[in-house]
């Protein structure tokens, strides 16, 4: 049986690989991605905010575990993120930047996540995996915990996107089948939500579309047409879970399909990689991808510079098993 440690390592390696693979495809149309790469299967450069924020989220769990609260998360922002925002803050999403502004003004959660206009950002979904790792087999608790984080920087569908991904990872940590994992994601969010509607719609598109029309059908099902940004959680989470299903829960198939969809491709890849990596464990992540994942640079979050996702995974696994983290 695959150990929690192996699944944790697979989850965060898959996240980092999907992030890095998808980065150059962000905001491109699927046709343009095909034109440039055919199928995008090889990591070209480093990862982005998805990986760095996930490491930061894991550090919150390491310190506070099930006792995590929005107030503790806000304090971490104030102590560890804001002092290092030296001039411009690079590589973060609107929601994190808006949250930093709100915290600087002295607001407290949940207002910090409400006063900017990007509550639906996929910024929580992109970093939700550690909460799922921390609650294997308990999607409801994973969702409750990620919401503590999300209340600081998001609201509404942004929090639901985080809950869905944390729930999916928590289920995948038990090796559940792909359909069961997506059911677990749906079980921790209201059925009457944009995210749930999109996940159901994407699933139906997968079932109904001819193989060569799946990309177009998924876009038609969930992509917002008249809005210039692509970092909407209801869209990114639905596309990522669809990619997970389309890849039958296998890391390489799920991630390469996910990034082929364009839009917020790095986050789609990161989520698809995290969920499938938790399900398959470290051995499920292609070795050529794993070889490309080094310590993060801290370009988005200076506080995590030098950290490696595998160390983070080991620490999270250690919290579950009571063992100290081993070397990488």
């Amino acid at each position, binding site marked *: 049986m695959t150990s929690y440690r192996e699944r944790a390592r697979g989850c965060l390696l898959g996240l980092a690989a999907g992030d890095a693979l998808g980065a150059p495809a962000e905001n491109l149309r699927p046709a343009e991605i095909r034109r440039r790469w055919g199928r995008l299967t090889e990591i070209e450069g480093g990862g982005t905010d998805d990986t760095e924020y996930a490491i930061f989220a894991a550090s919150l769990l390491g310190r506070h575990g099930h006792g995590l609260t929005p107030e503790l998360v806000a304090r971490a922002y104030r102590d560890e993120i804001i002092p290092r925002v030296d001039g411009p803050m690079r590589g973060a999403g609107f929601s994190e930047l808006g949250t930093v*502004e709100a915290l600087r003004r002295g607001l407290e959660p949940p207002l910090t996540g409400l006063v900017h206009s990007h509550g639906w950002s996929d910024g929580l979904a992109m970093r939700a995996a550690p909460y799922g790792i921390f609650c294997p087999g308990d999607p409801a608790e994973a969702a409750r915990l990620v919401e503590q984080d999300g209340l600081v920087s998001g609201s509404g569908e942004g929090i639901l996107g985080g809950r869905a991904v944390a729930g999916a990872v928590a289920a995948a940590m038990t090796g559940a089948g792909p359909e069961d994992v997506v059911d677990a994601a749906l079980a921790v969010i209201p059925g009457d939500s944009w995210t749930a509607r999109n996940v159901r719609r994407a699933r139906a598109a997968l079932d109904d579309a001819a193989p060569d029309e799946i990309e177009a059908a998924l876009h038609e099902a969930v992509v917002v047409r*008249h809005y210039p940004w692509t970092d*909407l959680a209801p869209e990114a989470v639905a596309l990522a879970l669809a990619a997970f299903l389309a890849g039958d829960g296998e890391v390489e198939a799920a991630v390469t399909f996910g990034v082929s969809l364009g839009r917020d491709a790095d986050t789609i890849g990161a989520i698809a990689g995290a969920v499938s990596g938790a399900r398959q464990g470290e051995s499920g992540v292609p070795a050529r991808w794993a070889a490309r994942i080094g310590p993060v640079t801290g370009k988005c979050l200076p506080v995590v510079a030098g950290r490696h996702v595998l160390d983070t995974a080991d620490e999270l696994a250690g919290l579950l098993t009571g063992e100290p983290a081993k070397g990488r």
Partner: protein
Amino acid sequence: MSGDRIRGAVAGLAVGDAAGWPASRHRAALHAPWSRRLHRELDAFAEEHRVTTLPVPFALNQPTAPLAVGPSDDAEWLAWTLLTADRPRTAAFRELIGKDLRARVSVRTALDNLDRGVEPPASGHDNPHHFDDAAAVRAVAFGVLGRDPSDDAQVTNAGDGVLGARAMAAAVTTAVASGDVTRAVAAALDLLPEGTAIGHNARLALSAAERAGEAFAAVPALDAALLDHVYSYGVGAAQTVPAALALAAASGGDLTRAVPAAACLAALADSAPALTGALTGACGGFEAIPEGWTASARTLAGCCLPDLAGQDLMELTKGLV
């Protein structure tokens, strides 16, 4: 008397809509597309050559009338709402699907949702701009009619977007009935829970404006209190409705002070002046609005809803006295 205030609310919105800097941008939509493309090219030229002379909308080989002071998007959507107010809201919106029109992201997305079979309230909720003030603008119509704007609002908006509509309608209804800006603002505030962004901001804005003492004086404090500038959408209900309430209050309901102050809140200059104009127009009535403004703001351009080109907005208030 309340007829004068009904007309004041409608005309006031149009005046504020016309007063903001973005009005001529919207009205320039009546020009050929190359005209706006050239505008962007001139902006790029200025950037490249480091000249500060910003291009303003121009009418090269195009009619000049759209660039004169006049109403734009918000006045047209208010007119459409007055014209369709007696119809079921979803049905009214459905008739717009496929038409050549221009609208806020919330409305465009809602029409797309309706077209895909996503019904209200999901049409307004599954919507990246659920928070914008499209419904708050339309709510001025329901305010003068004394009706609840919620059914209308939730077609295109959710959350703060719907709360903003309720607050605007209540404030306009109260202002039409009483002419009292303090009571109008209180009626709005009653509908804005403190734990929401719009409720939080409204209280912040009102106290900032009260400290400043006067509408124009309040502008820097409102900018500091309401805008985060990270990605400052100009038409978020949680910013524009509080700004309108605060400036209406700080001016004592005087449109001639409140509307130009709202136009100075640069990032909100698209719709905050319009909402401010509706509130103060309702308080002071039509006759208190400078004649030069009502004369130039009452005829619609059709820049968003082409069918309304040439429509006299004030004609639509005739049955409402």
